[in-house]
């Protein structure tokens, strides 16, 4: 059952089109990713879903409601974590949760929430003394304190170190396990691949594809790349003549053979047969990055986490 329905959403700021034509639905209980490069229109899209902005065209339905007209009801039932939103320096963790809790009809148990998010020992810590990861978790806690049916998390892991990012991913899965539908906005491919049940790739204000991560991967083909350094002479033509092999390339002393999934088996048997020893064997599978490039025709800045001073729009 869809809890969010977006149809032909269009939004412009002046004569700059932020969202051209975006449609998707989010089903109850899934983790839905909204993925795209900076400036693709992701944040504007979810801001229309939250009712923070009024769409210029198309329709948005959240839990069957209009997020602009029924804003109070939608906000009771949808929790949001905004990118780069902060709290007053001297506000303490518990006080912040207690304050935001008072805004909602359904109120979560604060101690339970603090335990769940690993903030129990920081309950009396002032906001400015929290680490980046703790601030981020508090921000998520504030999004959950009204027991929402949907949680919208925007650029959740931006600015976190790798450990912090992994912890936050576990957290998102736990949120979903509580029965909350999660909309995850990210430009970070690894995050989408790891967490999302389905995802929409948005580029320059349009939906390029909506699919499961594996569905997206299968769209770009199943080309694998086998890299190795032969220690004995080997004839490239011989490798190229093997069944399934679609290409052979040499760069320095490294040979790269491409082909479908079984190409590894084929290459290794051939090398064994020819009594060619090798080192530095590596197999590359297609990633969501490749899918992104092939779908949008350009690279997402995705393999490295961005620094905190960057923001998407």
């Amino acid at each position: 059952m869809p809890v969010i329905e977006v149809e032909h959403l269009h939004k412009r700021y002046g004569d700059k089109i932020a969202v051209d034509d975006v449609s998707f639905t989010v089903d109850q209980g899934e983790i839905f990713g909204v993925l795209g490069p900076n400036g693709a229109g992701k944040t504007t899209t979810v801001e229309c879903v939250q009712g923070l902005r009024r769409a210029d065209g198309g329709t948005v339905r959240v839990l069957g409601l209009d997020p602009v007209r029924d804003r109070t009801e939608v906000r009771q039932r949808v929790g949001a974590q905004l990118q780069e939103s902060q709290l007053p320096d001297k506000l303490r963790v518990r006080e912040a949760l207690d304050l935001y809790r008072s805004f909602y009809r359904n109120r979560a148990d604060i101690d339970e929430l603090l335990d769940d998010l690993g903030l129990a020992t920081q309950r009396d810590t002032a906001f400015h003394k929290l680490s980046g990861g703790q601030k981020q978790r508090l921000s998520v806690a504030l999004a959950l304190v009204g027991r929402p049916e949907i949680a919208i998390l925007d650029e959740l892991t931006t600015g976190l170190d790798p450990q912090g990012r992994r912890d936050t991913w576990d957290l998102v899965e736990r949120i979903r396990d509580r029965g909350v539908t999660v909309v995850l906005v990210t430009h970070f491919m690894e995050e989408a691949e790891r967490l999302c049940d389905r995802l929409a790739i948005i580029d320059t204000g349009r939906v390029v594809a909506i699919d499961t991560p594996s569905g997206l991967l299968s769209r770009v083909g199943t080309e694998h790349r086998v890299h190795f350094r032969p220690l004995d002479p080997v004839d490239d033509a011989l490798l190229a003549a093997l069944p399934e092999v679609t290409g052979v390339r040499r760069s320095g002393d490294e040979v790269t053979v491409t082909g479908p999934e079984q190409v590894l088996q084929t290459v290794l048997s051939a090398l064994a047969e020819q009594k060619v020893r090798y080192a530095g064997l590596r197999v590359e599978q297609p990633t969501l990055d490749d899918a992104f490039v092939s779908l949008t025709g350009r690279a997402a800045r995705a393999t490295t986490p961005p620094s905190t001073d960057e923001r998407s729009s």
Partner: protein
Amino acid sequence: MNALSKLIAVEAKLFLREPVSLFFVFALPLGLMLVFGLPQRGASGADAGQHGELTFLPALALALTIGMLALFTLPMALGIYRERRVLRRLATTPVNPALLLVAQVVVNLVMGVAGAVVTAIGVRFLLDQPAPANVPAFVLAFLLGVACLFAVGLLIAALAPSARAAQSIGPALFFPLLFLAGAWLPRDQMPTVLARIGDYSPLGATVDTLAAAWAGDSPAWPQLLALAVTAVAGSVLATRFFRWE
């Protein structure tokens, strides 16, 4: 507790955790009074003009308390809330972010009143000054002065492009206003045009009406009216131009 009372309670806590604002409200006006008030005692003759009036200095101290809250603390706090997207964050909850502004104004008002009471008591006993003689007029002048200065502060908060800008616009406006009120050069020694502007400037009108009521006289109606007009105009413009992000 409902959202607004909770917001007020939290904002009050945050205010009390800021030593700088506490100093502005409770210590600075009284300190200034003692520094400038003590040598003045006995020295003030009939020839001293505006500064010779016994109630000028305490009225100035009260105006200073309100002025600093209205022009320094309030615009900066709101600027920070906008910059850190606290207002935006609040907009995603069922609560209207305007309530945070209301809470801020309420807390600063309460602190202003508390500061004024402390200053007035300090003046009464440390400087052996009589208590305000015309109490109804004193309360009216105080309320209008507060409304006028807070409206100016809210306008700064609305127009300042950043918290840092608000932080410098406040003082940049405060010191000329203090000058116009006659804090340094008595208004009766200023060029006439400047003195008339001073009479109807936010701090000038506040100081005069407070001082008159303190001495037991009736404050000048045109000055009270000037305060009221500035209060309404400032609030309307601030509401019109306030940016949430």
